[in-house]
């Protein structure tokens, strides 16, 4: 049995797809919102890998930066701000089993990083680095010509979202509460 490039790619696809689905199932079934958010981050990383395998590496990078990096951090901030993951399923790092697992994962990552940094560049998989501009350029061309109006409208949307979020989440002090702000009915 010979390993064709397409076959290896498909195998990788199914591996990452299976991890994504398993993480999503764990995400939905967790009781603690913090654990659920971390499983969702795992799902998003696997989806970024799938994007790279689907020849959309720019979207994969944006997925890691925006979704896993920014949006999920906001979710975790809010979970911790509201103190929701309080009484159940808090990870106790003092248990020896958890410590051992953390040590094992850390060592594994360290070994992998050392091996990856010591591997000569020829031996690694041939990324389309020589035509690196061709990865982003088609997306950018479509974004800034065909969809320019939508792109500009997006900036207005983001501004409105910022203003709305600040206005909604602001804690009202009694001094600033004027007659223009109607009191909600007490529930």
């Amino acid at each position, binding site marked *: 049995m010979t390993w064709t490039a397409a076959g290896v*790619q*498909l195998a990788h*696809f*199914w591996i990452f*797809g299976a991890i*994504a*689905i398993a993480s*999503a*199932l764990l*995400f*939905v079934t967790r009781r603690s*919102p913090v654990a*659920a*958010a971390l499983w*969702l981050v795992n*799902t*998003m990383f696997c*989806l970024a890998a*799938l*994007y790279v*395998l*689907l020849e*959309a590496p*720019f*979207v994969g990078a*944006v*997925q890691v930066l*925006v*979704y896993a990096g920014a*949006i999920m951090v*906001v*979710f975790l901030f*809010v*979970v911790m*701000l*509201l103190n*929701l993951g309080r009484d159940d399923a808090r990870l106790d790092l003092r248990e020896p089993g958890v410590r051992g697992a953390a040590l094992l994962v850390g060592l594994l990552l360290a070994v992998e990083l050392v091996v990856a940094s010591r591997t000569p560049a020829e031996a690694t998989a041939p990324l389309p680095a020589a035509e690196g501009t061709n990865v982003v350029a*088609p*997306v950018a061309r*479509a*974004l800034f010509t*065909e*969809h320019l109006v*939508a792109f500009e409208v*997006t900036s207005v*949307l*983001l501004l*409105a*979202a*910022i203003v*709305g*979020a*600040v*206005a*909604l*989440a602001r*804690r009202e002090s009694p001094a600033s509460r004027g007659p223009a702000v109607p009191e*909600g*009915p007490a*529930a």
Partner: protein
Amino acid sequence: MIGASLFVSAVLFAIGVGGVLVRRNAIMLFMCVELMLNAVNLSFVALSRLHGVTGQVVVIFVMTVAAAEAAVGLAIIISAFRHFKSADLADIRLLGG
């Protein structure tokens, strides 16, 4: 591989829908919506291999809108949490639902 990604996308979307229907925590509900958006994004990227780069552009727009939605939605949750002292959707019944 496009068929495979559509399958993964459908499964993830179904999981997200199930989460929205089952979970009662408002933040969990939002995260399930994010999962559904991600599933749709996977479909867009997979089909952009067939129909050109527009799918990837749409994915970038979806991410932007998702970020805006998360910011406003979480602000609403914080504001509701201050008022009701709970993030459980069963406790928020201002309209008598």
